[in-house]
């Protein structure tokens, strides 16, 4: 159990994908059948070429309706015959190139890449550049849907190396609705601070309730804590 999530931990996989030659109608049907909002377009080696989303499908129909000069209602309810008459392929519909990310990347990197490229999802690739999954905004937020038991395991994974180090054997970790409670006694006040700080690095926690007690005060006399602040890096 790792402390922090990588893209591989939250991505959707296996992924339903299509080849560039797949027909528009087939892509639309596939997305309806599988109830998905986007499908990557990949070559025969599963290298991503682009992505077709519901937005792409709707944009295409809206463009056609606008071209015909239809009323507002028909921008939404395009004529079936028109759709068939102008049917094209996934390769023509897709938004390309696909914005990708590696499976071992941090969630923060995935969020930044989505923001920079203004996309809602990224195609996840292995080191060879082959598609292994798709990660969406919703997936990035899924760390907050983790059950308490899983959060507790991650907190323990974060604390255990340090617990052994500070010879504290009485620390108990409980998680309730994403709120992490730390109880017990540790040798030094600095240990209590470090353990709380480590617990905070776990993804998906709501708040830390640090009830750790310490036997010896080892930081009170330090002037560093009283400094008004330091300039940014």
């Amino acid at each position, binding site marked *: 159990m790792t402390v922090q999530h990588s893209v591989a931990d939250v991505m959707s996989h296996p992924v339903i994908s299509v080849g560039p030659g797949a027909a528009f109608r087939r892509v639309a049907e596939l997305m*309806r059948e599988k109830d998905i909002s986007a499908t990557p377009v990949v070559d025969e080696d599963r290298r991503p070429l682009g992505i077709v989303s519901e937005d792409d*499908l*709707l944009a295409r*129909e809206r463009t056609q309706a606008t071209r015909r000069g239809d009323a*507002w*209602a028909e921008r*939404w*309810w*395009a004529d*079936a*015959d028109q*759709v068939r008459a102008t049917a094209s392929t996934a390769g023509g519909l897709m938004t390309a190139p696909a914005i990708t990310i590696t499976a071992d*990347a*941090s969630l*923060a*990197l995935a*969020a*930044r890449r*989505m*923001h920079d490229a203004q996309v809602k999802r990224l195609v996840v690739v292995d080191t060879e550049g082959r598609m292994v999954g798709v990660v969406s*905004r919703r997936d990035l*937020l*899924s760390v*907050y*849907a983790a059950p308490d038991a899983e959060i507790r395991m991650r907190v323990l994974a*974060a604390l255990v190396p*340090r617990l052994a*180090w*500070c*010879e504290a054997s009485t620390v108990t970790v409980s998680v*309730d*609705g*994403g*709120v992490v409670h730390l109880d017990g006694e540790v040798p*030094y*006040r600095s240990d*209590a*601070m470090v353990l*709380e*700080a*480590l617990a*905070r*690095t*776990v993804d998906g926690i*709501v*708040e*830390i*309730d*640090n*009830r750790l007690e310490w036997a010896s005060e*080892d*930081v009170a006399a*330090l002037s*560093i*804590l009283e*400094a008004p*602040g*330091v300039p*940014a*890096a």
Partner: protein
Amino acid sequence: MTATATCEIAIIDPVSGEVVDHCSGPLPDGRCPRAQDGERVPCAAHGLAPKSGTGLEGWTFQIVDRDLEECPISVLTGTTGLSGAGGVASTESPAMSGQNGARGFPHRSTVAEVMTRPVVTIAVTTPYKEIVGLMTDYDIGAVPVLDGDRRVVGIVSEADLLEKTATPEHRLGPFERRARQREHKGEAAIAAELMSAPAVTIGPETLIPMAARMMQARRLKRLPVVDAGGHLVGIVSRVDLLKPFLRSDEEIGRDILDGVVRRWMVIDPATVEAGVHDGQVTLAGTLERRSDLDLLTRLIHGVDGVVGVDNRMTYVFDDLHSGRRPAEARVR
């Protein structure tokens, strides 16, 4: 902390906005204090507003489910009993704010800091055509529906339009599509008939992880943000909740030196050089103890917005291979 039943919650009629009843809040095990097993909860399909001084301020929300059997407060907050929710509402944990003296760090972002405003809104009488036009013009997926007093009475989303009026065109067969077209020619549906009501809302002071939990648990893409009186102040979407990941390099650098290094590790920040570029952190300098190198890397990974850490620091004293932790190394 002990679970308390003294928290009084006002139950609000979603249409008139009037307080129709009061409730003491969830039992310690999270159940409704008034519903018998399997019975519908009395506040279902109403608005809820915890009174001030309960630690739940800003948690005004509205309950959509009409068949709730559990206390919706524990459902929404994911906690059992109010003690947990009270802890959530505080922005600093006891140890960090009080005895350990690390006030104000780490910064815990609230909904108010990331929400989108102003918000495109509609009235209950806004016609279908106008709603579609607004959503297209502003490229938005949902519009809150307000009463005359700017209180949120519902929300109309793309999903509502599609679900209540039609399936998206590419999901229809040719015959269905033609039928739908005819059916809609003369139709003049208004927001009141299209909206999901009452809307699930959230308070501006709610912490982002809490908002994300709520959104995930309810499978919602966005939540109207309302003040204690139920008045709209903004709207928060999934993309807004990802904003903490997008913090500037300056903010990240400040958190690392003033937060992690100084307040958490109690090390003089002047001994650490932290370069931040697009969230990627590079560390240089010398620490006294070898054990602190790994700890610093771990802690920096937990700072919002950090993409990766490249720790090139060196150490003076190898405390990892000196057997037990030496007492003299603890006292700095």
